[in-house]
């Protein structure tokens, strides 16, 4: 296990070093959901309606929530540029403070500090369903033009997606919670599925070091596929008695 973690770290560092030689960013295929975010912000500005950003219902001790807050940073950059109203109801106070840091920084880098108001990011309650009830209420009354759900979700994901659909908003969701991806896929316009969501912050940042992380992930994926194929072949040979060892049981995963 130690070997595997070390190798993951090593591959990441190797990829980062690679980016040092070329100043061109490594190639990444397009993810439809991410392009749609910019469109959604533009559309909300035209309609003069706010954007609703839901960073999931869990606390910052979940990697998905941190990833969601980082994506919020990039969205805040856009809303600062387009002067769109941003509303971020949160279910945890630590997430509230992190989201405030991220959005204040975004409004400063866009040179629009006067647009930033601390209460854009506001706490509702820690409880999952009370938060869902309140966010449903916000959607019905403020009628945002775009709803973004980025973070860790549980059963309440469909409550958001169906309400958002009934008010006709563009909905873009991103989550690593496998059980909720089907609901987002069926009820939202765009969905960042599992790994696409974790890659979102690197895509939007356009920073070489972060994109190197993704190419490292791709390299590991190729290795995993090779291990699976090799394991299957060796097991087939083992079953047929041609070979005395079975690769997978040998390396004892």
């Amino acid at each position: 296990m130690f070997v595997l973690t070390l190798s993951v770290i090593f591959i990441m560092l190797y990829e980062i070093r690679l980016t040092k030689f070329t100043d061109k960013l490594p190639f990444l295929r397009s993810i439809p959901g991410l392009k749609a975010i910019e469109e959604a912000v533009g559309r909300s500005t035209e309609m003069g309606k706010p954007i609703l950003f839901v960073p999931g219902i869990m606390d910052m001790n979940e990697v998905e929530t941190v990833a969601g807050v980082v994506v919020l940073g990039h969205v805040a950059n856009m809303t600062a540029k387009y002067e769109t109203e941003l509303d971020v109801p949160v279910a945890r106070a630590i997430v509230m403070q992190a989201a405030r840091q991220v959005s204040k920084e975004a409004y400063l880098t866009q040179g629009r500090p006067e647009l930033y108001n601390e209460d854009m990011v506001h706490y509702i309650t820690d409880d999952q369903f009370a938060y869902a009830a309140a966010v449903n209420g916000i959607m019905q009354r403020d009628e945002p033009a775009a709803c973004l759900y980025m973070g860790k979700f549980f059963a309440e994901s469909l409550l958001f997606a169906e309400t958002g659909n009934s008010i006709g908003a563009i909905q873009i969701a991103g989550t690593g919670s496998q059980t909720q991806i089907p609901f987002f896929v069926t009820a939202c316009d765009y969905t960042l599925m599992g790994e696409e969501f974790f890659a979102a912050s690197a895509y939007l940042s356009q920073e070489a070091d972060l994109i190197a992380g993704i190419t490292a992930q791709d390299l590991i994926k190729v290795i995993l596929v090779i291990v699976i194929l090799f394991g299957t072949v060796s097991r087939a040979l083992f079953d047929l008695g041609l070979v005395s060892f079975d690769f997978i049981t040998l390396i004892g995963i």
Partner: protein
Amino acid sequence: MTLSAMIGAWIAVFLTLSIFSYLYKDNPFYKIAEHVFVGVSAAYVAAISFWTQIYPNLLGRLFPKDGPLSFTGLEFDFNHSFNILYVFPLLLGLMMILSVFQKFNWMARWGIAYTVAIAAGLKAFGYLNSNVLNQVSASVVSLFGENLPFFNISGDSVFNNIVLLLGTISSLMYFYFSKEQRGNFGKLTRVGIYFLMISFGASFGFAVMGRISLLVGRFRELIAYSEPSYNYSTIWLLFLIIAFLFYHSIREKESNT
């Protein structure tokens, strides 16, 4: 039937019906239930987290019975031994509270930093082991096992294993970012999408069953509370809410015509 249970039943039925009224449309009853829920749950979580977290774990460990700080007269006996390290979360917690003031806003960063640190440290390895490693060994399938039938609907079989192998690899390749999905790599990821779609359809089918059973639970409670012993609370309240909504919608129609 004690008075508290009677009052409780009426309150529970009123709140349940107000939340269900949201299905009709956003109306005063739903707004009442929503705001009661937000208010009560915020304080409920505050109470639970104080009495099961700060009180036993923090105070219990900083002021144990006849521990070094018991000269202050404060003693919380939870059979914990004294632990000086717990001053660290106390400090970060107080800083988190102080960050409510504009000037001390930066103080929250320490608490955020610690939270993200353990999120990354504690969780990363667990996922690597259970999600990646165990799944790799589970995806290595045997194609020529001794008594493995070619096809069998519920149990191991060569055909099932081939489909499993193909499905896992092609769906994994859909998440490959460094190459545009065109040409025969595009065909492979297209097969991957088909498997993902079947997987989403299956879990959607499962979800439908789960959600319906929750509705069964709620209706059973409403039926129970409509009995004479609760003097027909569900029936009375249902009638009142529907009457009010009907009147409310007529008044609304008149006001905007």
